[in-house]
């Protein structure tokens, strides 16, 4: 299954050319800036595409690509006013269909988003998926994502976001501490099955990230959220490294490294024989580490510091003790 490296750039550019033409047809006259905004690309990319379209066409009867066989634009408008006016069309006048994989990527994405309040109307989503299937040139690739029940927490947070008010909830942090929080909801993020609320925490007076499944007693308040947009920029990465983070050396099979990608920013490893490697994790505290290591039982072993080994050993020992206290194994 050695696949030839795909000519990704060219495929993207071709798709853009084939998509820009029907858009321009529907808009008798549109500025480069408007088209760039609509397609969410740079103005220069639009200009490059327009320049290429304007000199492209079909060989024609003479096989010489004569004027009538080529697209044409209003060149003065384009060069002087940055405005696109198509004056002659060739061969295509409609949007292209989706490929089997393109339709599948969107359908699986929609299935994944089934827990969003926006997707509560299952019939509407089903009709949307049917349209994507009909709009594909072949049966969509069978990639499917199990639907999740619409999460009540997300509906509450979304309602608060809609009304511009704070949410409040009891939060159990990774250290095992319960606190009551008031938060301005800013963004809902997810990684696979885990959902997070990014928001302004009034207890900490700082932006914070909260796991939805660690919230209890979630409710909408009547307190307006503060204006943040100017001074508050949420970092892109969900997990922030901090100067106070502790370094822990672990040993594991090289193949298991991807499981820990979020904790090991540099991914530098040293081999210790066989397929086993050592790497350094950055953790905020050992409470999270002991859970992480115990949940990857048999894969990951803490090498140092000794204190970290002790915390993990104590955690596992306490776990084993519960089974011994109840008698049989």
């Amino acid at each position, binding site marked *: 299954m050695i696949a030839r490296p*795909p*000519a990704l750039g060219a*495929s993207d*550019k071709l*798709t853009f*050319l*084939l998509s*820009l033409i029907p*858009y321009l047809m529907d808009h008798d006259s549109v500025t480069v800036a408007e088209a760039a905004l609509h397609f*969410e690309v740079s103005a220069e990319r639009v200009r490059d595409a327009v320049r*290429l379209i304007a*000199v*492209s*066409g079909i*060989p024609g009867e003479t*096989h010489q*690509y004569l004027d009538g066989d*080529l697209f044409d634009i209003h*060149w003065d408008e384009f060069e002087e006013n940055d405005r696109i006016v198509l004056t002659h069309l*060739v061969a*295509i006048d*409609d*949007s*292209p*269909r989706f*490929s*089997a*994989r*393109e339709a*599948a*990527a*969107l359908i699986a994405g*929609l299935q*994944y*988003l089934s827990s*969003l309040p*926006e997707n509560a109307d299952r019939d509407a989503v089903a009709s949307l998926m049917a349209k994507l299937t*009909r709009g*594909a*040139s072949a*049966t969509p*690739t*069978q*990639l*499917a*994502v*199990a639907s999740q029940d619409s999460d009540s927490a997300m509906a509450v947070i*979304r309602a608060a976001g*809609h009304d511009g008010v704070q949410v409040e909830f009891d939060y159990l942090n990774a250290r095992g501490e319960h606190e009551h929080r008031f938060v301005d909801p800013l*963004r809902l993020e997810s990684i*696979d099955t885990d959902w997070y609320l990014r928001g302004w925490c009034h207890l900490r007076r700082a932006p914070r990230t909260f796991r939805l*499944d660690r919230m209890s007693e979630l409710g909408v308040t009547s307190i307006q959220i503060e204006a943040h947009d100017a001074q508050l920029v949420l970092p892109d990465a969900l997990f922030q490294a901090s100067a106070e983070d502790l370094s822990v050396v672990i040993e594991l099979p090289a193949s298991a490294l991807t499981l820990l990608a979020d904790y090991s920013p540099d991914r530098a490893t040293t081999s210790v024989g066989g397929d086993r490697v050592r790497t350094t994790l950055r953790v905020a505290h050992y409470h999270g580490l002991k859970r992480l290591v*115990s*949940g990857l039982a048999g894969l990951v072993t803490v*090498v140092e510091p*000794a204190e970290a*080994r002790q915390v993990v050993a104590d955690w*596992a020992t306490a*776990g084993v003790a519960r*089974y011994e206290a109840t008698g049989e194994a």
Partner: protein
Amino acid sequence: MPTSPDKSPRVTVEERLFSLVLALIATEIGLTKADILATVQGYRQRFTSGGDNANLERQFERDKDDIRELGIPLEMIEPADDPGNNHLLRYRIPKGLYNLPPDVSFSPDELMLLKLAATVWREGSLSAESRRALTKLNSLGVDSSDPVLGYAPSLRARDASFEPLSKAMDRGQVVAFLYLKPGEGSPRRRRVAPRAVVLHEGRWHLYGADQDAQATRTFLLSRIVGPVVAVPGDTFVPDGEGKGQRALDELDALWAANVAELEVEAGSDAAVRLSKREAHGPGAGTTVTLHYTDLDILADELAGYGPEVLVRSPLALRQAVRARLVGVRDAHIGTTLGSAT
């Protein structure tokens, strides 16, 4: 100013592909390979009349594949009076199959959801597929409505076997891989016709026809060890429609049939998080009943909770969690690695 395409010394890849698509859409009866190489922009500049055009022919074969990958229906028509004569094969793109059907249109709200769905894939080839699908959606000229609250959903398919399996599925290619079944000491080679790849309970599964067992099987991608390789010459006709849903239905049935009873420590992380998955609706007590699909995966998760969880039943899960905790304890006793033994 516009320049005549004749004079451009070098034709970019996208210009050649674009010109090929235009030429093949414009033709009703199709063009032969010779026509294309001699006349289409990007080929004709390199075409030697009466000479050796082997390189150019290979270029055309690759371009054809790239165009088809984009969902553009590039057809081959055999001459009725001389089937099998490659020189007379004609190529074309039927406009009716190229154009998006007229009844496929999207509202601003639908477009907002589709844009969000496209952002789900952050890594791998599906992120490129999503991006191209969005470009095609944008060609319809509809402006999407804005979501009230920002969403940044993401789905990762980090299993190394994900890409080769999903591509093999499209090509109808039987594949082979080593599969480590829990409880078995060493991996066994499986030959499978892949029919669907599905995400269930946070794990990617392959659903396919096991060629040796002559039966449908479900495999966890995380237990595929080593590369996924094509079995040369062993192909099938992809007829995937509905297979993904069938795979999910089977996994749902398995999930519903498996029940674990747990005791959780009140107020702990385990109590807060696991009670959200309580089979009898969100609970607040210290007893949690959970459904699960895979005993080993649940055992890994429960071991992470350490003393916060005690498995009551089934016995196999209880033993699996205890064994994991014993393993972690034994590996970490002593101040340095290996000092306890």
